């Protein structure tokens, strides 16, 4: 028999299971690891539910727990996400710091099924998670900062760089190799 507290936990947290699984899968990229991570997240959330403030964003709270557990797991296993080569990181920074002259008009409706998700997965980790949390999960900059434990300014810059990477991937899907980049509308 469950207590009112258990019932409240279930009604508050369990509806986010699909969101958590999708996020866990994007972190681990392995189904079984994602399932383990989701289960551990719920167990930890259940134990910590007393500290949850009713009326605050339960989804962000659960995502924060999941993200921390994922980091802990890496530490425990003495593993780290594959580091991004410094030169590539620097190149991304240079590209993203420029104000683009024109935005490509992407044919969003004509993109192949799953293209956006696949393209998101190609973004290097530090930039991929802000993009996913913002453009897929709909979190605010502030919530993303809390989930990833990074300052708001870092959220903003990583989000932009991740989007630029994503845009490059998507443009390459709709333009034949070697084609000159399309000019956008005149500014």
């Amino acid at each position: 028999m469950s207590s009112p507290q258990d019932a409240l936990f279930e009604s508050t947290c369990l509806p986010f299971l699909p969101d958590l699984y999708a996020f866990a899968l994007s972190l681990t990229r392995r189904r079984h690891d994602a399932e383990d991570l989701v289960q551990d997240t719920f167990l930890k959330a259940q134990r910590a539910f007393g500290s949850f403030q009713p009326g605050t964003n339960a989804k962000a709270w659960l995502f924060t727990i999941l993200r921390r557990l994922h980091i802990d797991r890496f530490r425990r296993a003495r593993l780290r996400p594959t580091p991004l080569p410094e030169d590539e990181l620097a190149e991304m920074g240079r590209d993203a710091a420029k104000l683009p002259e024109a935005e490509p008009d992407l044919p969003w409706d004509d993109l192949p099924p799953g293209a956006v998700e696949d393209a998101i997965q190609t973004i290097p980790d530090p930039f991929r998670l802000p993009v996913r949390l913002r453009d897929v999960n709909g979190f605010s900059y502030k919530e993303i900062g809390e989930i990833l434990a990074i300052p708001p300014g870092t959220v903003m810059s990583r989000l932009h760089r991740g989007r630029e990477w994503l845009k490059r991937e998507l443009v390459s899907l709709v333009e034949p190799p070697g084609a000159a980049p399309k000019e956008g509308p005149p500014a």
Partner: protein
Amino acid sequence: MTTPAWTQDPAEIDRTIEGELPPAEREARAAVLAADAALAARVEARRRFLAGLAAAGRSADTQARAAVPPELAARVGAALAAGDAAGAGAPPRLLRLALATAAVLLLGLGASFFVGGDEGDAVAMPPAVLDAAEAAVAADPGPRGCAHDEAESPLRFPPVRDGLRIWACVERDGGTVAKLYRPEELPSVGYAAMPAPGTAPGATVGRTDLGDTVVFDIAYGRKAHYIAVRKDWLERQRMLTPGRESCRACHHLSRVGKDNPHKIVERSWKLVAR
């Protein structure tokens, strides 16, 4: 006029478009854009890109949510039950029982209901399954035979007034099917198959857990009535009436001081259309 630094920073432009600014700053930037047509055009192009990305992101999110392994909800439920039992120092037999039942009672509230009978195998419906039924529900004919408002409901059941789920009932596969949807969040959240009306004895009330919704089915006046209530609503009602059985949670003042006459039977659900 000096060009503000933010106009040269693409990350700041994203932030401007997405409204992640204090109100005063938002107004100041809007004024800059209003005075600079070229900048405004570039920002508008960026806005189109972000809007397309957001729509594609929502679509990707829907697909990702639908890809949840069906067994994961049961697995998590079992783990939570085991966590509870272990935390309470429960003996191994109870722990095993909790593990076995949690898999089929994942989302049940159950605390103040008397659960009996074996008319159904109660299982949790993954929310992704609910999402998958949208098209079928949209194509189905309109509602009939269910409690749509308080006047139609058994004993003028108040939750119909403020319990926020409306549905249609259709005969399908030899049983009655409750078609559920949120009036404020159309399209629907799915289908659930219920036993045919009139089969339940006397005060027996069927209960089916469907994601964040609990559906009660009641045979009354030789007619099946379905009452869907959000779990969080139900839970709030229960917490407002501590120490009482659950009648008052649904019947409000009409049952104050009376014991719960109902026998709650957990129903199974099945998806009848995808």
